[in-house]
């Protein structure tokens, strides 16, 4: 093994040792070569990459949420604004890895927030599902003492921070609750849409209502705070930051005084229903409401399952539904305006043709009667509107051609805007249904209904019964078209966009959807009948409007809805000789149109024109209970 004895041999560095020393030197050279090359690679060749990583390490970009723009009424009164709140935010990635350490921290968070550890975990999981990897807001509205506690003990709360968040504040309580909609974090699916380009996970967007419709104005532009942090995520310095840009305000066409007044009037019956007050010339909506209503601020906090059920269930009459645009109702006699237009325009009858209302109409084996078995005797069309003779309109329904898809009444219903969306600046309106022979026969062929189209269907349609489905806004649009000479308006809630300083950035003047040709004779005949209905003794709503200081044209409706009590309707045009405003009111289970819907419409007009009305009689239901 040991080949030499060094002490005794002068030539001790014999070749075996020399070889081994050479090998050792070779190893030394190899080691330094490897280290130098690796150093060269890391610093010179890849240096930029690592410098970027080092900066990524130390710089944390904190998105600064922009305050959303306010929502104002037509006079600039603030309806929806922001409130700043302090919230506990958790970055799951900065929490300790699952284990006892994480559990202990969650316990500490639990003490501060008052949430159980299970709740916290649920929130984190949900947050991760909505925005994977993003920060999660655990609790809003933290008290100042807890904020100080968190800040002082930051080292014990890695991954937890106190953030300023904006919460929507509804300054007028529940007023116009159905219009605003709610805001919420943008979802992963939404981020893929072009509508939300430039947004990031965790950003807040409007999810329904005006907040959704005008989100691009309201949302503003988030800024970024660039903060230098150390390895534990503690901020050590402020770098350049880009401030957030507040969103612009939306000024609505809503008159908030009128809105509240109308909501009170509707709410006084305690029944589900809806109202619309719309400018008859340009489609701007002055008031729009639905009962029952809800507190919009409920959506600023996480909402529980039972709360949501209470807002949407049939039992509670689904307060969340905006019946003004989502209701699907037969309209009853308010539809007669359309039947009358169709009859006159198609020359099924002349305005002055006298029809003898004997109180009954026999077709085949069926006998149809007026409501309340009334007999009106010889009447022309204007009279028929005044008293709301069903038999008069039944015979028009019988006369109207309704073959194939082209029923004459159906065509006019479509022209007036029924069966299609109104194009209002709110999401989720429904289009309703105009029943046609083609529609029913197709259902019949598919086995979805028990019978094909019959003459009876047309007769039902003529008085707004049967399969007709319309919402109050559609009826308001139809009456406005009659009032304004044929402009089928595009209703709108937004008046303009304003900057934070109040400068007008954009105005909304949507053009009418179309112009329909209604002859002056038709228009004046119907307007005359509707005016007499409201203003003349014996008219269906004379009891309500008879004392009004200027003429109002209005039509009652009492719609039968299967086993439910009748639904009350009223549509008013005021003033009748110079139409400015259309008011449509419907009240489910409200009974006669004159009983519930008409008084609500009257109170809306009263408030709008600042003209107190004394009803002609205390009880608007006339003796004998005449039904229109």
């Amino acid at each position, binding site marked *: *093994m040991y080949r030499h004895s060094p002490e005794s041999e002068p030539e001790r560095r014999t070749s075996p040792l020399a070889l081994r020393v050479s090998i050792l030197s070779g190893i030394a050279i190899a080691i330094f070569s490897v280290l130098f090359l690796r150093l060269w690679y890391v*610093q010179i060749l890849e240096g930029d990459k690592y410098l970027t990583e080092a900066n990524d390490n130390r710089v944390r970009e904190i998105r600064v949420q922009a305050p959303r723009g306010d929502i104002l009424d037509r006079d600039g009164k603030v309806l929806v604004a922001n409130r700043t709140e302090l919230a506990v935010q958790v970055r799951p990635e900065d929490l300790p890895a699952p284990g006892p350490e994480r559990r202990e921290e969650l316990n500490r968070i639990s003490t501060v927030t008052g949430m159980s550890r299970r709740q916290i975990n649920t929130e984190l999981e949900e947050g991760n599902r909505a925005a994977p990897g993003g920060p999660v807001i655990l609790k809003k509205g933290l008290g100042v003492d807890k904020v100080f506690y968190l800040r002082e003990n930051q080292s014990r709360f890695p991954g937890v921070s106190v953030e300023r968040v904006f919460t929507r504040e509804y300054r007028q309580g529940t007023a116009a609750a159905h219009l605003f909609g709610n805001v919420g974090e943008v979802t992963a699916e939404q981020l893929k849409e072009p509508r939300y380009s430039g947004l990031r996970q965790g950003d807040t967007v409007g999810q329904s209502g005006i907040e959704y419709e005008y989100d691009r104005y309201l949302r503003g532009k988030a800024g970024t705070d660039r903060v230098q942090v150390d390895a534990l995520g503690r901020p050590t310095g402020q770098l350049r930051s880009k401030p957030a840009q507040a969103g612009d305000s939306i000024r609505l066409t809503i008159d908030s005084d009128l809105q509240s007044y109308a909501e009170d009037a509707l709410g006084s019956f305690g029944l589900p229903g809806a109202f619309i007050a719309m400018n008859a010339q340009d489609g701007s909506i002055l008031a729009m409401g639905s009962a029952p209503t809800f507190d919009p601020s409920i959506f600023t906090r996480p909402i529980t399952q039972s709360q949501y059920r209470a807002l949407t269930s049939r039992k509670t009459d689904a307060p969340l539904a905006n019946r003004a645009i989502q209701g699907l109702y037969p309209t009853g006699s308010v539809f007669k305006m359309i039947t009358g237009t169709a009859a006159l325009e198609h020359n099924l009858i002349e305005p002055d043709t006298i029809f003898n209302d004997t109180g009954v109409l026999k077709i085949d084996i069926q006998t149809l009667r007026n409501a309340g078995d009334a007999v009106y005797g010889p009447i022309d069309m204007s009279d028929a509107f005044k008293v709301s003779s069903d038999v008069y309109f039944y015979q028009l329904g019988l006369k109207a051609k309704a073959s194939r898809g082209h029923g004459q009444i159906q065509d006019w219903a479509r022209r007036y805007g029924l069966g299609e969306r109104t194009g209002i600046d709110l999401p989720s309106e429904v289009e309703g249904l105009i029943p046609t022979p083609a529609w029913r026969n197709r259902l019949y062929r598919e086995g979805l209904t028990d019978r094909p189209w019959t003459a009876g269907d047309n007769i039902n349609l003529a008085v707004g019964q049967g399969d007709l489905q319309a919402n109050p806004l559609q009826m308001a649009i139809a009456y406005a078209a009659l009032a304004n000479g044929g402009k089928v308006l595009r209703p709108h809630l937004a008046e303009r966009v304003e900057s934070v300083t109040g400068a007008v950035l954009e105005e909304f003047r949507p053009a009418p959807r179309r112009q329909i040709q209604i002859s002056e004779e038709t228009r004046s005949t119907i307007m005359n009948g509707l005016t007499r209905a409201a203003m003349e003794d014996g008219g269906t709503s004379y009891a309500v409007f008879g004392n009004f200081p200027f003429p109002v044209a209005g039509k009652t409706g009492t719609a039968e809805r299967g086993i439910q009590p009748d639904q009350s309707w009223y549509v008013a045009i005021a003033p009748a000789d110079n139409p400015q405003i259309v008011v449509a009111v419907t009240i489910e289970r409200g009974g006669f149109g004159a009983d519930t819907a008409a008084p609500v419409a009257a109170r809306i007009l009263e408030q709008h024109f600042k003209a107190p009305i004394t009803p002609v009689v205390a009880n608007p239901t006339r003796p004998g209970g005449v039904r229109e």
Partner: protein
Amino acid sequence: MEAARPMTLTRGRTGIGERFGLPYFDGILLAAAIGLIAFSVFTLAMATSDDVPGEPLYFVIRQSLYAIIGVILMLAVAKIDYSRFREIRVGLYSLMIAAISLVLVFGAAARGSRRWIELPYFRFQPSELAKLLLIVALAAFVIERTRRGTPIQQTLRILALGLAPAALIFLQPDLGTGIVLVVITLAVLFLAGLRWSHFAAIGGVAALAVTFTLVIAPATGLPSPLRNYQEDRLTAFLNPSNDPGDASYQVNQSVIAIGSGERTGRGDSSTQTELQFLPERHTDFIFAVIGERFGFLGAAFVLSLYALLIWRMLRILTLSKNLYGTLIAGGIAAMLMFQILVNVGMTLGIMPVTGITLPLMSYGGSSVLVTFLAIGLLQSIHSQARLDSRSRAPTPLLR
């Protein structure tokens, strides 16, 4: 062997060495060592001023003190004829075993392992000294037993002598230093002329042991000689992750730190080290601090000083007047080479995390003092060789 020569020499000119009574001093080796420790103090001054509140020079003062004591020790050892250590090999070896055992009994625990003995004003780490004692003792044993027993018996005997302290240090547990002792043993055996076949056998056994420890034991659930964290550290560099609790996190941060230094370094905007992304920055990861702060310029300069140091050591190895000196110089050179490779390699992400210090650069008294002692031994070998060469005419292999 011959007795120590008297140190009375008269030369024509007087150099610095002569003033210290050391005319045959290797000035370049000294310069490289002083340069390294000076750079260490400078780096600590730059990077650790905020580490101990109220004492910005905490590490600087202590490291400087260690350096001064180290240099004095080095000069003292350099004056002794190293050959004398052969005579007290058993004493040295016993001292080493005793010191390591002491730490197992009385040692101060740090992160679950006992490595230090608390002394007044100083926390002594016997395993550092053990490295040097092993070299000196083992080299002596090799030479003494040259003619006894069969070659296999000789090999096994030396292996046992080297691996016994290594095993004790593994128990502390201090994996890194234990491996250094194994490397020292192999290096001494190698230079002493161990047969290639024996080397192959040792290599085979080692490969089997490593495979068992890192692959088979974890996979089958058999008891592993390594603690979990040690195992993780050894294998983590193979698959880096972003888990900050993980050994590979440290390596990731270290590589980012060095890389971000680029050509000339980031100076005071060295965020990786300043913002504590990098752990153990004044000890095990000090090379990353240098890399980030001074860039390729600084890091390559430090590596060059090490290259210089190693070159002088290998040169002294060949100059040595006897095999004992050769073996000591070889053991020391191998030890330092291994430590540089593993420590710098670790900071560059090509070696596992083992807790091996960077000689003369990492903060720490035991390491600095022992490294200077080792350099003192080399100076002694150098001086003795030059004194010897006045009578003979050596032909160094390396110059």
